[in-house]
């Protein structure tokens, strides 16, 4: 008994140390980038910066926040986040409700559900998708970033399963009182489904904030890039066409690394700010997603 409890304590110690070390390791790269972004370029190129800023300075940030291209792209991202999230949520609620009905209440329910589910099982591929968007005239408009992904099938499934788990009596009572489907949906189902809707809301916000590929191929002019695409072109591709002559000169002064680090951090900041909310709804979202009604 004595030895087993000793073994247990040794294991516990190891376990705590291991898990804490691993979890810190997970965010160390982010801390390093943050430290670089607040350090002077001299300190960074000398390799002095690890996890704490050296020669603390805001220079990289003021350089970026003075850049009209950066600010324009933030504006475009905000636009797509707002419009895209509203459309996404509205369509998810509107579509999940009929699909949550039993076949007896909505005859073609299963047929329509498969119509949506099929789109996640099989797709026409990148090129026909691109050409369709081009044909509908969305290239270089904000709608190209919003409409093609407006129907989020996974979110609809999550919501319809939540609707189905709600007590049927509420709905029946509403019908007895003379409420139609429309009223029942907005007055009863939606208020009761706020946890699910909040989960979807946060996922959609993050998704729109992070999307970069659609901006890259659907926007011909870099001036129309959302932030994520702009960052991709600056940080990953280092697209010199996208830099002005004076930017290139300034970059020499600021050091490429500090300015990239600052942009990476600014691109992450809204997610970090939303993180406590994300976290709160995250568990719920997973439980909702895995437990079927």
């Amino acid at each position, binding site marked *: 008994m004595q030895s087993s409890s000793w073994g247990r304590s040794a294991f516990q110690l190891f376990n705590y140390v291991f898990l804490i070390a691993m979890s810190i390791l997970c965010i160390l790269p982010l801390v390093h*980038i943050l430290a670089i972004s607040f350090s002077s370029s001299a300190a960074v190129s000398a390799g002095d910066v690890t996890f704490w800023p050296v020669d603390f300075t805001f220079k990289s940030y003021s350089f970026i926040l003075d850049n009209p291209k950066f600010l324009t792209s933030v504006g475009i991202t905000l636009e797509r986040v707002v419009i895209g999230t509203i459309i996404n949520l509205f369509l998810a609620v509107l579509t999940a409700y009929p699909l949550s009905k039993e076949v007896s*209440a*909505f005859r073609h329910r299963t047929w329509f559900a498969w119509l949506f589910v099929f789109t996640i099982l099989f797709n026409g*591929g990148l090129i026909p998708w691109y*050409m369709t968007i081009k044909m509908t005239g969305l290239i270089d408009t904000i709608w190209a970033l919003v409409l093609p992904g407006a129907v989020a099938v996974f979110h609809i499934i999550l919501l319809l399963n939540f609707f189905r788990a709600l007590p049927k009596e509420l709905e029946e009572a509403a019908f007895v009182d003379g409420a139609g489907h429309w009223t029942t949906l907005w007055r009863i189902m939606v208020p009761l489904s706020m946890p699910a809707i909040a989960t979807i809301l946060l996922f959609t916000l993050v998704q729109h904030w*992070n999307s970069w590929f659609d901006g890259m191929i659907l926007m011909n002019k870099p001036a129309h890039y959302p932030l994520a695409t702009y960052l991709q072109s600056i940080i990953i591709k280092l697209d010199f066409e996208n830099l002005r002559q004076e930017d290139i000169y300034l970059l020499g002064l600021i050091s490429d690394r500090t300015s990239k680090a600052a942009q990476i951090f600014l691109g992450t900041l809204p*997610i970090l700010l939303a993180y406590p909310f994300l976290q709160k709804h995250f568990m719920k979202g997973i439980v909702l997603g895995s437990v079927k009604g």
Partner: protein
Amino acid sequence: MVQQQATSRWKRQWPLYAMLVPAIICVVIYSYIPLVGSVIAFQDFTPFKGWFGSDWVGLDQFRYAFELPDIWKIIRNTVVISLMKIVAGLFVPILFALLLNEINKMFVKRSIQTLIYLPHFLSWVILGGILIDILSPSEGMVNQLIKWLGFEPVFFLGDNRWFPYILVLTDTWKEFGFSTIVYLAALTGINPALYEAAVIDGAGRIKQTWHITLPGMIPIIVLMATLSLGNVLNAGFDQVFNLYSPQVYESGDVLDTLIYRVGLEDMQYSVATALGLVKSVVSFAFISISYWLAYRLANYRIF
């Protein structure tokens, strides 16, 4: 009589149909019309002739695609990278969930969870930018450490011997926290009475883990494993695209990046569509099998 029934049903159900209209219009335009557009895989497509005016060439584009010099290497890369990701993405979270389950201090447990699933919410542009910086052979933090330890610096993102493993490692870094939470959620569903009974029977922690915790996790493990089968041809476009460069095409070029380059950089629309169609058909088969297995083995239904 039948007519009357139909009318009254229509009266009750028409708002349900009406609610579906906007979403149906959207998926028809942006999911089903592209499906029609994939006919260009069987044509020698020229933009001004359109989807149905271009010359039909049968399977020539497929033949051409599968005679591309690197095609088999790329398919091999795709499958190897995605299988490694599937395996790592399955076992690392299980291990973490089991270890986290042994932590009794709620505050510590919650803090660890908070840290490990943060990367899940960041995009590969951000993570790619971070990785390019810290893995840089000249200035990167990782190589500073390697040099300090007295070894030669390694060009992780430019060396074919390292690149695929870096993909797997960094993908695990991004996603394992998310899956860990899924497993932990499953663990909370295990009946505590089972543990109490085991303690009375004299079972230690290891025996409890082996005979109660793990079996309790089996359904969700089976579910996650079968569902991940559908990703056999998805090596992760976002990640590869943001980390690779021509010098690691040898080990890191995958189907999706090839399709992107052939289609949107070389403008060979028909060839890219043919490749995409092959990928879609094979993926469809895998996803269908995985959903069917998930249904049979874990009683999982999509809706």
